[in-house]
């Protein structure tokens, strides 16, 4: 019996030693969790700021693109006016010269008519003017299309913003779980609990993709087509 008491005493001693050794370890674990939870920077806030900054910059770019497009539209209209006035002027010159032919100076004018026409129209040569106007119109159209393509490419901001919000929400969730783990720790409850439900605070699509590959749209088009076919046959 004394042997049993002695053994039990040893066991108790070992248990107490274990507790003495474990408690500091648990304290370290607790501190580590607290440290980690606090150290994860306000990631969701940071990512929100990134989204806001990129949205702000994108809108600025869109403002510029719109402004430049408007300028080119005005230039196109002005070009049309210039074109019309050039043709009007040519018409007037021909008519004036024709009238001159019927005057007493007509004979002289007739001799110099062709020369006069050449001189005047050398500045307003039909084919040169046409070519120049055409090239300028093409330049305006191409540039406006390029501006539109810039605007379209800026959809990347919306798409990546949604991805960022999704990541921010996940980081938020991790932080919440760490803090809850801390609370359980402090309360001494080492019980396996289910993870808290992940509740996003903003709308987003974490699967949003910025890709110009046509497959996604083609796939959607096919589904829409099939759906409409079925509806039509109902």
């Amino acid at each position, binding site marked *: 019996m004394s042997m049993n008491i002695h053994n039990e005493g040893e066991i108790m001693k070992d248990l107490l030693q274990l507790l003495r050794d474990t408690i500091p370890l648990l304290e370290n674990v607790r501190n580590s969790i607290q440290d980690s939870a606090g150290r994860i920077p306000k990631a969701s806030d940071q990512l929100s700021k990134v989204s806001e900054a990129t949205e702000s910059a994108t809108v600025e770019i869109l403002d510029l693109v719109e402004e430049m*497009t408007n300028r080119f539209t005005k230039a196109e209209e002005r070009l049309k006016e210039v074109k019309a006035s050039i043709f009007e002027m040519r018409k007037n010159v021909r008519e004036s010269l024709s009238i001159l032919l019927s005057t007493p100076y007509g004979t002289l004018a007739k001799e110099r008519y062709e020369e006069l026409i050449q001189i005047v129209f050398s500045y307003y040569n039909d084919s040169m003017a046409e070519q120049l106007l055409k090239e300028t119109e093409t330049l305006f159209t191409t540039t406006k299309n390029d501006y539109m393509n810039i*605007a379209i490419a800026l959809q990347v*901001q919306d798409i990546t913003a949604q991805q960022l919000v999704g990541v921010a929400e996940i980081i938020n969730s991790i932080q919440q779980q760490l803090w809850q783990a801390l609370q359980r720790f402090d309360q001494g409850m080492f019980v396996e609990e289910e993870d808290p439900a992940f509740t996003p605070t903003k709308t987003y699509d974490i699967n*949003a993709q910025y890709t*110009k590959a046509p497959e996604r749209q083609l796939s959607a088009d096919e*589904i829409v087509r099939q759906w409409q076919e079925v509806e039509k046959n109902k």
Partner: protein
Amino acid sequence: MEMKFLVDDDSLTMRRIVVNALKSLGYEQVVEASDGKEAITKLTTEGSTFVITDWNMPEMNGLDLSRWLRSNAQYENIPILMITTRGNKDDVIEAMKARVNNYIVKPFTPQGLKEKIEQILKTVEVKA
């Protein structure tokens, strides 16, 4: 009758891009909203003959907006085009069940937008 578009998206960037694309296609009359609830308010106060809506939006998403419009006699035939990042088959089917007229996966192109609008207008009687 001249078309008047309602562009509904919680992203300011996307609204600007869609509006610019519409203007490049010759559609000048455009109203904007940032979620489904605001879209309904704008429809009531400013009117529209064509709705272009995103899916993911706060307050009321594009799907719920479509369902609301289809359940309302005044708007049951209004054309609805959804422009969204969601490209899964299930998403498209869900949108069609909510009776949107057509579907564009972001990023979109002005040509793609033009085609979808024209397709819808061919099949839908436009009411103010």
